[in-house]
Structure formats: structure tokens, C-alpha cells
């Protein structure tokens, strides 16, 4: 209804291949960024900024990473939280052992370390596929957990990987308040989300999708499967690593290895299923949905407040999480992103159905 496409003709390929070809979409993105950068910091409460917005952004980043590997390249991974842990502990170590680096550099180095570990655990993809590979990524999850707990060098001598993240400084900016941390997170996520979008609409993204859709044919048009899969593992782990670092520095502050347990990997997998496999938008939608849902449930339950309720809601949440995954797979395999798209298409085609 609001879309008007008459007279939008392109006179060059550069314009034709824009990320958002329709002006209304460009305005939409600009509006979302405006809300995120201006409206939320000014008007939202600390609780919302910290526990909702920052967390959603961080998990969105992790979900984007998993989506690159699973949604775009078709390689199922159950170890995303493990790579987050690598990023978090690596960034922590860089911050503690090399003080003076801008904290963003720490995050990126955390991501790079995660990418290298991702490379290591991606190696089996040379020979194995599908579920076999998924199980291999479980190995990553458990091995990483074990290594961090067993070698307390990683936690600067603390047991169970317990760490407190140091103060953050970027070129004189002391990132201290909840809003500061939110803005830092937001900026990192925005940059990496656009980078991810650029990756998937270019040659690398096409190669990944080709491998996902039909690896035999992909190889026969000259795509080298193994390096491309490895690259997907690395990029995915990089995103997870940065997300892990953000989680540690910008949200938790002090944490243990349990912040990155297997359940977290499954939550991220749930996010991309619910949000939409193979879409960047879906990663955001899925993360927001999976994180907001329990809050919503407990708020509703709080209306009928009683002590047993918390336990009830905790279990109901797990059930609902499972049911949602099944429900989305059955009813809308392409997730919230698809619903969002259909809504947009409806508006674009209005009043026609097609």
C-alpha cells in the first residue's frame, strides 16, 4: 500500500544491485537506525537498554554468524556457543595482557581467535557432511568448554573460567554506562550486519548458497567446496567470537564458562529457525523473538503472581521454545523473515494478491 514503484528505473548495474533497491526500504532502514541510535538511548529505561536491547543485538550477531554457516552454506552447527566462548576469553586475555588496545580491537581479535578455532573444527567438512558434521561441531562445543575450564590460564588463573572484564576505553571514550555499552554494541553489530549482507549478496554468498542447494553442481561449476566451507566456518565463528566478546564486555561483565553452555548453542539455532534460515533480517527477528518471549511469559505470569509460577514458567518456556521450533518448521520453514517479507510483499502488491 505504501510502496510506489512507478518510475523507479535503473540506468546502471550499480543501482540495480543496491542492497535496498526500493526507496521506501532505504527510508525504513534509516528510520530503524534512527530509532536505535537516538530514540532508544534517550527514552528507554536502563533495564530495557541493558537486558533487552543489548542482549538482543548480541544474540543477533551470533545468530547472523550461525545463519551464514547453516542458513547460507547449509552446514549445520551445534557449537556456536563454544565459538562465542573462544571470542569472549580471547578478548578478555587481549584486554588483560595487552592493555591499551582499543576495546573494539580486542573484540575483533577475539573474533579472529574464534575464526581460527572455527577453521580447526571445520576441517572435518573436507570429508564429512550433514549430521555427521553436526555431531563434529558438538565436539567443538565440549572441547572448548573443557579446555577453558581445565587450563585456568585462559581465565587469568580463576577456576571454572570465572572472569571479570576490565574497563573499556576506545580512543579516550570510557564505555561505562549502560547506554554507552549499548551504543558500542549497536555500532559493532550494525557494521558486521552490513558486512554480512554484503558477503551474502556477492560472490562468496553465492558460492555458499550453491553449496547449500546442490553441492555436486556447485563443484562442477568450479566452486572449490572445501575452502568455501572452511571460509563459512571461519566467518561464522568470527561472528560468534565477536558476539561472545560483546556478551562478556558489554552485558555480563563477570561470567563463567556456563554462559556459553550447549543450551546457548541450541538457543541460537532456534533463533535462526524461528527467524528465518538464510536471511540476515531473520537473525535479528529470531533473536528478538526468542529473547523477548520468556520475558513476555514471565510478565504475564507475574500477573497471577505466586511462588510456584516461576518454576512453571521456566518449564513452559522450554516447552514453548520446542513447540515454536517445530511449529515454524511445519508452518513457516522460512521463519519470521518470511512472514515479514510476505507482509512487505502484501503491501507492495496491494490490493492484488500477486
Amino acid at each position, binding site marked *: 500500500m505504501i510502496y510506489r514503484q512507478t518510475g523507479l528505473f535503473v540506468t546502471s548495474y550499480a543501482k540495480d*544491485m543496491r542492497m535496498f533497491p526500493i526507496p521506501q526500504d532505504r527510508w525504513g532502514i534509516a528510520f530503524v537506525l534512527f530509532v536505535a541510535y537516538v530514540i532508544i538511548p534517550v527514552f528507554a529505561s536502563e533495564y530495557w537498554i541493558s537486558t533487552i536491547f543489548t542482549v538482543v543485538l548480541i544474540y543477533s550477531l551470533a545468530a547472523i554468524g550461525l545463519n551464514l554457516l547453516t542458513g547460507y552454506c547449509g552446514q549445520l552447527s551445534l557449537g556456536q556457543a563454544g565459538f562465542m566462548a573462544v571470542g569472549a576469553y580471547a578478548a578478555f586475555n587481549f584486554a588483560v595482557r595487552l592493555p591499551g588496545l582499543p576495546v573494539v580491537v580486542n573484540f575483533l581479535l577475539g573474533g579472529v581467535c574464534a575464526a581460527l578455532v572455527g577453521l580447526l573444527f571445520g576441517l572435518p567438512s573436507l570429508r564429512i557432511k550433514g549430521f555427521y558434521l553436526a555431531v563434529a561441531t558438538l565436539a567443538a562445543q565440549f572441547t572448548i568448554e573443557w579446555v577453558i575450564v581445565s587450563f585456568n590460564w585462559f581465565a587469568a588463573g580463576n577456576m571454572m573460567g570465572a572472569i571479570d572484564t576490565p574497563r573499556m576505553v576506545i580512543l579516550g571514550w570510557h564505555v561505562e554506562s549502560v547506554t554507552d555499552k549499548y551504543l558500542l554494541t549497536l555500532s559493532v553489530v550494525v557494521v558486521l550486519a552490513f*558486512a554480512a549482507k554484503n558477503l551474502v549478496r*556477492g*560472490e562468496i554468498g553465492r*558460492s555458499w*548458497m550453491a553449496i547449500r542447494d546442490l553441492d555436486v553442481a556447485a563443484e*562442477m*561449476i*568450479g566452486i572449490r567446496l572445501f575452502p568455501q566451507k572452511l*571460509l563459512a566456518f571461519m566467518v561464522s565463528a568470527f561472528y560468534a567470537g565477536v558476539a561472545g566478546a560483546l556478551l562478556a564486555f558489554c552485558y555480563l561483565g563477570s561470567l563463567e564458562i556456563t554462559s556459553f553452555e550447549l543450551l546457548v548453542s541450541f538457543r541460537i539455532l532456534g533463533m535462526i529457525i524461528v527467524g528465518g534460515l538464510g536471511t540476515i533480517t531473520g537473525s535479528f527477528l529470531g533473536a528478538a523473538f526468542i529473547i523477548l518471549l520468556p520475558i513476555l511469559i514471565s510478565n504475564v505470569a507475574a500477573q497471577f503472581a505466586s511462588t510456584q509460577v516461576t518454576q512453571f514458567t521456566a518449564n513452559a518456556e522450554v516447552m514453548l521454545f520446542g513447540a515454536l521450533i517445530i511449529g515454524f518448521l511445519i508452518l513457516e520453514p522460512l521463519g519470521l523473515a518470511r512472514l515479514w517479507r510476505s507482509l512487505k510483499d502484501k503491501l507492495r502488491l496491494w490490493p492484488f494478491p500477486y
Partner: protein
Amino acid sequence: MNAENNGRGAEPLLQVENISLSFGGLKALDSVSLEVRKGEVLGIIGPNGAGKTSMLNVINGVYHPQEGRILFEGKDRTTMRPHEVAASGVARTFQNVGLFKAMTTLDNLLAGRNLFMKKNILLQAIYFGPAQREEIRQREKVEEIIDFLEIQNLRRLPVGALPYGLQKRVELGRALAQEPKLLLLDEPMAGMNMEEKQDMCRFIIDTNEQLGTTIALIEHDMAVVMDICDRIIVLDHGAKIAEGSPDEVRNNPEVIRAYLGDE
């Protein structure tokens, strides 16, 4: 311009020498030799299970033969991997359409250009600058193919939703995007109606004549094969039983026996 025509049928582009291939105990190819000559359209025919697709798979590097060797442009490449084969200038289409179904026509064709693209993940993440220029360069090439195959209105459609005949055409487009020296077509006209077959014939002939691409194709429709092929090779039970011009093959008693006997 007509160099490929002058040279047609003379120089071998691909030589397959005494290839044998078996799966477990099953012999798919039994000491088969053939050559594809520069500039020609070669037809490979034979009853079901004659080993035609296996032959393409061997040429393609999907399977490696247990015996024999393959020369492409005079160089041995028997043990090449499929992506190396592609890089050396061989493209193919599949019997049951090997497209990337969730991707658009444009992306499928662009994917076919991957061999020509410089990959640099950082530049691509930034997009603006070299990566964009590269994308545009490849897009220009792909647009020529879209124009060539008259699939302008399919650009933005996911190929999985296209009718079968058009999928086959897009798949040919993806193969052409590789700018192959040798194009292998596995039943390019299977499952098509008359009109689609005619179109496909025209595109195959145009590809051969205008782009100078050497073509080897498998096809069941005899009329089509006789029509567009310069030379025909007949396989039966994994062995070559005849070879020659369409006329020679048509009248070859062994071929007739193989076909009738199979019924």
C-alpha cells in the same frame, strides 16, 4: 570469426582413451574410447543404462576411471577433481536439472562466473569499491547470456519455481556463463514439449555457431540428435558400438539391433 568452422572436425579437443569404470562389480564403462573434436556437436546415444551419463561423469571428474586416460587439449587430466575440470574449460548440464533452486536466475548465472571472480572476503564485506566493480563486470557478461537465451523476464525469479523447460534453459545459461571450451549436455531436451525442444535446439546450435563452443550431448530424441549433431557415438552396455555421421549411424545394423533388442 570462422576459425572454429574451418577447423571443425579436425583437431581433437578431448580424447578419452580406453576408459573403464565399475561400481562394485558393476561395469558401467568397458574400455571405451572416443574423441570430441574442436568445434563439433557430438551426440552420444544409446539405450538406457548404456553408460552415457557415466561417460559424462568421468569426463567431468566426478568419477575417476579405473583404467584408461583422458586428455583435454592434449594434456592428461584423468585424475582431476570436478572443480579443476571446470576451471580447465569444461561445463555441463544435468539430466534432472542441477540448478541452485533457492537462488534467482541471475544468481545462478553469476554463480557460473565464479571462476572468473577474484575472491577477497574483506573487499567483499565492504562491497563498495573493487568488489562492486567486479560484480558489475560479471553482471555485464551474464546479461549477454540472458539476452542470448531470451530469459530477461526470469532474472529475479527463484529458479525452483520456474517451469521445467525454462529451468533447463537457465541451466544452459549457467554453463555458458563459464565460457566453456567444451560443453557437456546431459539430455538437454528431456521432458520438454515440442516448442521448448525447438527453442533449445536453436540455442544449442547458436552456442555452437556463434560462441564457437564445442558440444557433446546425450539425448534420447533421435530426431533432435540427427538434426543438430555433426557426429554421433553409440554406446551400449558400457561399450562403444558405432560412431559416424548421423546417416551412417542411422543405418548401422548394430545400432538398430541395440535399440530394438533393448525394447
